[in-house]
């Protein structure tokens, strides 16, 4: 397994109120996005990257490899809420896909299979 080593992007310290990046919106228009939901840029998103403004373009760049919403927020140094709004927009425009965590179902064969897989993975670290 390769060690994942992202390059930190330093953007902090800019004098911009966070929600000016989202046009003042604080909630996602479509479905709710979990903190650990994985964002991946689509080919279309990568091709059209230059059409997006800074933060959204950076989300596309960083998510060439799967990247959780919370990771994007940390790497871009912008609040989680802002990343959720921008990611929601990119999703609607087909620039990224978002993989949700498994639904909160805590029993059944599918769930125990998942837990066994997680257990096996942790034991072999």
């Amino acid at each position: 397994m390769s060690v994942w080593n992202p390059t930190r992007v330093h953007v902090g310290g800019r004098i911009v109120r966070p929600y000016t990046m989202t046009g003042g919106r604080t909630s996602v228009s479509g479905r709710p996005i979990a903190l650990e939901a994985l964002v991946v840029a689509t080919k279309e998103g990568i091709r059209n990257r230059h059409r997006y403004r800074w933060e959204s373009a950076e989300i596309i760049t960083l998510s060439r490899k799967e990247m959780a919403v919370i990771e994007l927020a940390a790497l871009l140094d912008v609040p989680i809420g802002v990343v959720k709004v921008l990611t929601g927009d990119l999703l609607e425009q087909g620039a990224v896909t978002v993989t949700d965590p498994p639904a909160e179902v805590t029993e059944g064969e599918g769930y125990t299979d998942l837990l066994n897989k997680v257990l096996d993975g942790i034991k072999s670290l």
Partner: protein
Amino acid sequence: MESSHSEENRLTPVKIVVAGGFGVGKTTFVGAISEIEPLRSEAIITEASEGIDDLDTETNKTMTTVAMDFGRISLKHDLVLYLFGTPGQDRFHFMWNELARGAIGAVVLVDTRRIEACFAAIDFFEKRGTPFVVAVNTFHGRRLHGEQDVRDALQIEPSIPIVYCDARVRVDVQRVLVAVVEHALNRATSSAGVG
């Protein structure tokens, strides 16, 4: 339109929440096993300010940032585990709901010298029904209190595991995570039997 990404390569994200009082070692715990340096992410929340004239309700709110530490562990080619440290301060407990949603389980990290600091976390996971284990951070390998003493002080169900760990030590943290998932498995299989 080109297709985006092939379905079979999809990673599934899962998470385990690491809770406990302020300064109990949550970030150290996450950092001991994460493949990335623990990252800190911030959420902006609005808090009602008291003692201000009620002329305009919008201005009676102040913006505060709350920081969350998290780490990442690749488990399989299609499975990635995120560890989330909860914000320690009491006034950020409302954020725990979002953190706990969809978590496969939780670790309540305890410093037995300040055992009361973890009560809120235990109450929360008990109420929410999230499977959790109690991990006593031994700080330099010293067990100040025995398991039964801890269990008595916390008043937790006998089925809830108590494990000792040094939050700085990778294999200790790994053992705690194994305990969480095994406990979640036990719970999942026993509840399936009842249902």
